[in-house]
């Protein structure tokens, strides 16, 4: 008798690592039928092969759903190879297939960082940001009126919590144009100059889906500073270091209009 724990460990070793031999003796290879020859006397290897195939196919399909632009860019076959390599390094760690892509941009970064395809990890990061935005909890966005209750001399002390349905993505490549040119129905022959400039993007959820807003470097810095827990005064210093003419009021209005902020609070006195 094989204890359940041992059986499951051997089964997974066969599926993930190809170690079929320790599992094989515990698997029936066929069955006797009274009505004629046995039609399905498959070997243990063949039976385990069905589950191994399900494992790689299921993982690749789930990844495809989350990264359709990347798949379009590299092609179905290459995407399948990347998915298999990614699964070997980062097997699923939870029962929810919606979560398996978290490490995919980082994995691609390791592969393509120094290649001519260095934009691919950033495209993947943008697609993951879209997924995260769609799957984030529903949290009411900060109303502009909430700020009116705050005395003007306390603004510098103000801190914000960010709305989890808003995600930041930055890239030295024009990833938004790449992303848009590879949406279903987009023209396929657009030429995109990879040197056309960096992108500072905010992905945010609307009732119709995820929308992208292009930010300036300083606006992006503001979002990052607020997420780091800086107060408005500290955040403003960081933004002004990038852009001496930075307009804080305008940037805050933009973030609020996109629902990027959730709550505003002053330190307890």
């Amino acid at each position: 008798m094989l204890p359940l724990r041992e059986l499951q460990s051997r089964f997974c070793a066969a599926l993930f690592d190809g170690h079929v031999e320790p599992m094989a003796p515990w698997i029936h290879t066929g069955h006797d039928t009274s009505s004629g020859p046995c039609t399905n006397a498959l070997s243990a290897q063949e039976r385990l092969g069905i589950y191994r195939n399900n494992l790689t196919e299921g993982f690749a399909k789930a990844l495809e759903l989350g990264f359709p632009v990347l798949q379009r860019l590299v092609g179905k076959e290459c995407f399948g190879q990347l998915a298999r390599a990614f699964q070997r390094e980062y097997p699923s760690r939870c029962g929810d297939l919606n979560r398996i892509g978290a490490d995919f941009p980082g994995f691609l970064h390791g592969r393509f960082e120094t290649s001519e395809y260095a934009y691919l990890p950033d495209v993947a990061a943008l697609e993951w940001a879209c997924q995260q935005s769609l799957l984030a909890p529903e949290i009411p966005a900060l109303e502009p009126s909430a700020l009116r209750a705050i005395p003007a001399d306390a603004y510098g002390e103000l801190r914000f919590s960010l709305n989890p349905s808003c995600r930041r993505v930055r890239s030295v490549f024009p990833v938004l144009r790449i992303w848009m040119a590879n949406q279903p129905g987009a023209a396929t022959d657009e030429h995109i100059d990879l040197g056309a400039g960096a992108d500072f993007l905010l992905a945010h959820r609307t009732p119709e889906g995820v929308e992208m807003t292009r930010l300036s470097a300083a606006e992006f810095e503001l979002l990052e500073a607020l997420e780091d827990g800086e107060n408005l005064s500290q955040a403003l210093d960081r933004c002004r270091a990038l852009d001496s003419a930075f307009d804080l009021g305008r940037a805050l209005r933009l973030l609020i209009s996109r629902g990027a902020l959730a709550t505003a609070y002053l330190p307890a006195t």
Partner: protein
Amino acid sequence: MSWFEAHSENYFGGTPGATLRAIREHYPISLHGVGLSLGSTDPLSEAHLGELARLVREIEPLRVSEHLSWSSVGGRYTNDLLPLPYTDEALRHMAARVTAVQELIGRQLLIENVSSYLQFTCSQLTEWDFLASLCRETGCAILLDVNNVYVNACNHGFDPYTYLDSLPVEAVQEIHLAGHSVNRVGTREIRIDTHDRPVCEAVWHIYSAATRRFPGVPALIEWDADIPSLDVLLAEARKADSIAEDLHAAAA
């Protein structure tokens, strides 16, 4: 349509359930989980259970179901429904886990039989005896997947009607129907649960027998790959209804 079914995991992580909530205002909902890994010897995922409990509180579903299977060990997830060996040890283990989940969510669970492509030499019980014993020991109910019964009957060589006749009548509370494919390996064949085509004739026959043995049990068509037009789906659902209704009419 009289009720809707949703995969529980699709509404985890605080994912907006506006559509699900809108449906819930007008129809009962059955929450069908695929990722709990009930039969695994790893500890139950507290995060997964917490999400499920939250969703059950929010949606107040008519039924909550999971599978007679496992999907992970040592923290690695196959995200597949893997078969259990039908041993006394596995039965005790599964019963303890089903009981733990039922206590945590404060609800009876329905446990669904899965398609399988192998059997373990160490199994001591048949699948139907294992499932019936699980119901007795935990008070759980059964989500009977008629297609999975047929697929396993073909793959492993048993009589699907024996399976049906061995299940406690009152335990079966939902039925699933689906299409499957036949994979040929040389001259040999094995049936794979694919949910990508119409229900086959043999499965309709077994379903007809199931509606006699388990009258009034709601049925659902699972078609989640190569999804056809709504007309085709509705025609399948109507066929299931008409088989159940013919029986009702014959009995009246």
